[in-house]
């Protein structure tokens, strides 16, 4: 068990340091910080709202992640397949599950670093008023969990292709579908012709419906189970895809 975790950690370590070996990490962090604060202050009207909360900050995260998570995760497997290093990895004494989990965790931790760097906005809102810090903490956790689901989806889809751009596009489109599933526009279109349970199922698959509950400070078990099982399912498919597509 110890050895199993150790190898997963070695993969994670290499991947995480990999982000910082190139300008990718700093560019990503800058873009993430600029976009998240830009959206909060300009689109979310943080000051005009005159409320001591971070709704204006968190409500844009699903849309931000829709583009930024595929940008982080697109290289995870596509690059290994393009450069041929997948052959090195798979012939090491390590399971595909260890490889997939190690790589995914590295990207998830990188996202955590990005989220931690947005903390000044939390400090600001505490300086300006008296926000419900409990809700903010839950929202941060929820945001990270949702980012994990986006990343797992991207990691899985990046195993389908050797081309990072294709991996980016298909991940963004799939993420868009998962966000839109919660929109009234989509749901009412489905509701008109399908039984209620189908509408409910589609709605329950939506990142947006789960995340908006979290933003209100409601963190129920179903949301946790949803995001975690989404991650596990995507990673499981990822392991199978690596096995099937490795030699293509």
């Amino acid at each position, binding site marked *: 068990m110890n050895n199993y975790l150790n190898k997963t950690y070695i993969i994670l370590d290499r991947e995480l340091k990999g982000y910082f070996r190139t300008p990718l990490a700093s560019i990503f962090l800058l873009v993430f910080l600029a976009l998240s604060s830009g959206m909060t202050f300009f689109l979310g009207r943080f000051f005009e709202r005159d409320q001591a909360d971070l709704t204006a900050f968190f409500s844009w995260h699903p849309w931000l992640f829709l583009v930024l998570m595929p940008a982080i995760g697109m290289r995870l497997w596509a690059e290994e397949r393009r*450069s041929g290093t997948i052959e*090195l990895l798979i*012939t*090491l*004494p*390590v399971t595909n599950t260890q490889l997939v989990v190690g790589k995914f965790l590295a990207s998830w931790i990188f996202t955590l670093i990005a989220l931690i760097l947005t903390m000044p906005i939390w400090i600001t809102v505490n300086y300006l008023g008296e926000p419900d810090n409990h809700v903010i903490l839950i929202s941060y956790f929820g945001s990270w969990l949702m980012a994990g689901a986006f990343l797992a989806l991207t990691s899985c889809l990046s195993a389908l292709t050797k081309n990072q751009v294709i991996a980016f596009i298909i991940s963004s489109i799939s993420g868009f579908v998962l966000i839109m599933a919660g929109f009234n526009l989509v749901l009412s279109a489905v509701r008109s012709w399908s039984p209620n349970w189908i509408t409910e199922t589609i709605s329950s698959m939506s990142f947006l419906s789960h995340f908006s509950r979290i933003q209100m400070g409601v963190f129920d078990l179903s949301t946790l189970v949803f995001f975690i099982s989404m991650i596990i399912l995507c990673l499981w498919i990822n392991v199978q895809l690596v096995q099937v597509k*490795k030699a293509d």
Partner: protein
Amino acid sequence: MSDKLINATNLKKSFDQFIAVDDIDLSVSRGEVVGFLGPNGAGKSTTMKMLTGFLEPDNGEIFINNINLKSDPLKAKEYIGYLPEGAPSYSDMIVEDFLSFIGKMRGLNNNSLSNRLEEMANQINLKEMWNRPIETLSKGFKRRVGIAQALIHDPDILILDEPTDGLDPNQKHEMRNLIKRISTNKAIVISTHILEEVEAVCSRAVIIANGKLLANDTPKNLENKFLNKNTVSIKVSSKINNVISKEIKSLLKYDDVKIQKTDISTHTILVSDNQKNPNLNTVLKQINKLKLDVIEANFQKVSLEEIFRTITSDNNSK
């Protein structure tokens, strides 16, 4: 228990309709260096990918140090060092970090890892490039890094897919010396289509084409099998008419005597035999009896290249 470090039987692998490897058996013992020869697309790389556990064979079994690769792949892979075709590596990493990553994944602890890293730096001459990103290295150094990652855990089995491809003659020479140096206590498989490489380092040559194993023997035995290709060639400036030609053939007691017109004034007499090497002295003595004007005489030993061409073209024509 078998002393064969690699023992593969009835290996078969197809990709859709294309049969890449067709019923190949291969075993390699400690101390052996097996040269895996074949034209491009013969199935060399596919076979190696199966031996290293990258691809699963459709049929057949592979035992690595008596461990079934299919049932216990993690244990079996520990014994193998592998240089894939093109020596892929993480180009953004520096040499030391890359080798240390592979070493850790191979289960080396901190102590043995630092010892092995030092050995690799010295043995494979990587010292001067040690802290350079791999993407900035020349092809020769990238190949060395590839060899170093395959050797980092001092494996019993080394599988090298075209280790000298793209290297200059000096680098090739160095690589061959390195392989020779480390070959004493390992089982090594090298794929190549450079025949001099097999002659230089291999104790056994395995020739495959169209996925089929066509020959599996020592270079010496392969040469003996093609004794009839060893030829004494005598160039004469005299005119050879039918009568002289018949006389030559009756004087020379060998299976095959050919007389070819080389140009307007010269002829070449080619002598070979299915059972033994033709003797240059004997042939010359006989020719002298006919008072022919000899301008050139030599014994041409069959080259591995000729053997390779004969075997693989025979297979193609079938």
